[in-house]
């Protein structure tokens, strides 16, 4: 579903390698966790996947479509939830959702059904008629999540999705992610919450200083670490050694 081929990005005239020749393949029906310390290159990689940052070299393929060659077709298959939910403060929640539904050309009856479903799940129904400026950080985050789910994307990409969510919403989001994978769709997300990654992800990649230093299922990571350690210990050992 998602394939990164020799992806690289440098900053400061090539002095800082934010992402260094990453190769990665995420299969359909997989929940893929992308871990790494602050400044490791997680967000840079995600931005290159969703079209916010042009790679210096390498390719991003979504369902075989090159994101930078054929952006419109590729973007129709994905949706992206950024780490900070920046949305139009002056629009009402429902106006924003209608706007997003228009962009993905979703007919009225379907959009109504889907929006109502996700508003119920995230308990945002009572606030959806208010302007977004009146929302808390968590509510904005939920709104962006709903807007990203309206068109039922093949590939759901999230950057630190649990930040700012209350425990109940966080739990529901995890359920949605799992359910999507059961339907054969794909989820790719970055996180600092190692517990979530350990319990939820089918496969995990750990990135440090722009390079992938570990990749595999939880069992594979444990085996390569040589014992039955938690993800937290594996993570700390790997990122400290670098």
């Amino acid at each position, binding site marked *: 579903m998602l394939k990164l081929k020799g992806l690289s990005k440098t900053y400061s005239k090539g002095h800082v390698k934010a992402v260094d020749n990453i190769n990665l393949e995420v299969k359909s029906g997989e929940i893929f966790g992308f871990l790494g310390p602050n400044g490791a290159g997680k967000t840079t990689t995600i931005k290159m996947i969703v*079209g916010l*940052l042009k790679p210096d070299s390498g390719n991003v393929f979504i369902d075989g479509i090159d994101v930078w060659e054929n952006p419109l077709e590729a973007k129709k298959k994905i949706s992206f939830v950024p780490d900070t939910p920046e949305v139009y403060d002056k629009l009402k929640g429902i106006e924003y959702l*209608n*706007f997003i539904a*228009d962009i993905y050309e979703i*007919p009225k009856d379907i959009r109504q059904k889907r929006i109502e479903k996700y508003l119920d799940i995230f308990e945002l*129904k009572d606030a959806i008629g208010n*302007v977004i400026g009146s929302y808390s950080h968590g509510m904005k985050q939920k709104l962006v999540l709903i807007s990203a789910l309206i068109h039922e994307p093949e590939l759901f990409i999230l950057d630190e999705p649990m930040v700012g969510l209350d425990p109940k919403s966080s739990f529901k989001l995890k359920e949605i992610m799992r359910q999507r994978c059961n339907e054969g769709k794909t989820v790719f997300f970055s996180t600092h919450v190692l517990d979530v990654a350990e319990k939820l992800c089918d496969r995990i990649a750990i990135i440090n200083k722009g390079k992938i230093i570990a990749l595999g299922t939880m069992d594979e990571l444990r085996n390569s670490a040589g014992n039955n350690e938690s993800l937290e210990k594996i993570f700390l050992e790997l990122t400290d050694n670098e």
Partner: protein
Amino acid sequence: MNRILALIKMDINNTYGLSAIRYNLKSKKEKWKLILIPVLILSLLPSYYIIVFSIYNLYGVFLNMGQKSMFLLYGILITQLILFFTGLLYVLSKYYFSNDMNILIPLPLKPKEIITAKFVSLMIYEYLTLLPIILPFVITYGIRGSEGLLYCIYSLIILLFIPVIPLSLASIIIMAFMKFTNIKGKKDLVRIIGYFIMIVLLLAFQLKVQSIAGKSLLNEDDFMYKLITDSNLFVKRLGVVFPPSMWAAISLTNYLNITGFLYVLLFMGISILAFVIMSLLSERVFLDGLIGNLEVSTSRKSEKLRASDFSKSYPVYLSLGLKEIKVLLRTPVYLFNSVIGVVLIPIIILMSMAMEGTNVSQEIKMLIGGNYHLLNLIGIGYVTFLGIMNCVGCTTFSREGKNMWLHRTMPIDIKDQIFGRVLSSLFVQLIGIVTLLGCLAYMGLINVQSIFWITLLGLLGSISMTELGMIVDIYRPMLDWDNPQKPMKQNLNVLISMGIGSIYVLAVGFLAYKLLDMMDVAFIYGILAAIFVISSYVFFKILNRLIKRQFESLE
């Protein structure tokens, strides 16, 4: 005092992005962009030269009348009135709508410390606006009158103090306005309507005073005698419009005697007094207007979601255009600059004519001699120029700010981006056209043909103007801002677009003027339509490529 200095330093750094510029200078691409700015400003110099040249000649006119002090009053008055009226808007957004208030209010700072810092930062910004206007007057007077060193010193003092009174007045009015309009519920609506009425009333007052002063001067029995004997006659009579300007003008023209000295003292003293009053007042009223402003009203009982809340599926460009219009109408600063702007200009012109008292529409009718086409062509030119003056196109991407990620990650075709954004500008233009036609109808200068041609060709011209603005804006979008005023009023893209736009309108206008004697006006309309359509198409093609490139390469 140290706290105020720290605040001023921070505010200036933040407002002008000094640290960001320093950081950007490290990148080669950004360096090029920075070099481009002075080049673009230089390109505006030819039209500026024409203005300076006319100012230089104006001196001669007043010299011949023996009223050369009036020349200075003219310059100072224009500057101070512009400072006052633009100040109303700047103060409103800087004091009440900037996001840094969320950080400053919880800090142990007095309101007057915050206001003083913001005032100084605003003053520095206003110098950038006022110096290009006032300097030609002061320098011309100095050179042509061979004034001495003392004149230079007096000029420096006057220039330094010139924004203080207009800005203090604007601050006092806005602070009072915000305190009294801080009504729960429909606050935004009350403020938008209130602001509009306030501007119209202040302008009407100004124009009325000017008109009364002008008439009473001419009606004086011994006018000619006084004109010869009193070289400050004009200044004293017409200066009542805004007395501080009069004091400044008199002090500069009498710098060699005690009168000049006393007037410069008066000008400085009243400036300082105005600032002190403003600052003391801020301590009492500023927070009252602000605190409610930070809260966003929510309906207590949110209504149940109805089927009608789910809109039927709109085409992407229409949905994007509607979103633009909603944000434009609901953000006060955007509304003041775009919609209110296009409504105010014809109304101000109408008002100033009405205040004159003479039957201006009759005079215009005689002037055009029943040839309404001339009026139509001027109307078309005006509407076309509004296409860039309404600031919608040339700030459309900048206004997205931090929401830009949305447009770059969603599958929106570039042509939909262009159509939607042009549509929102045309919406504002339509309001401008209706106001213009309304004003013309009020003066009895309208017929069905005028309505047709001004609307049709005005809208066509507006499309190319909006696209032109969009080209400038996407080339260097200002996305990193904390105050919605920034992408609208502190955005160089607006100035650059206006510069290029005015050249376009002047060129097309000149062509139409030349063709007037050569062919039937119907052909001229046809030629104008062709020019607008072709340039819209060419700009569209350029935009298409530029947006694609920028959406990919922005970081």
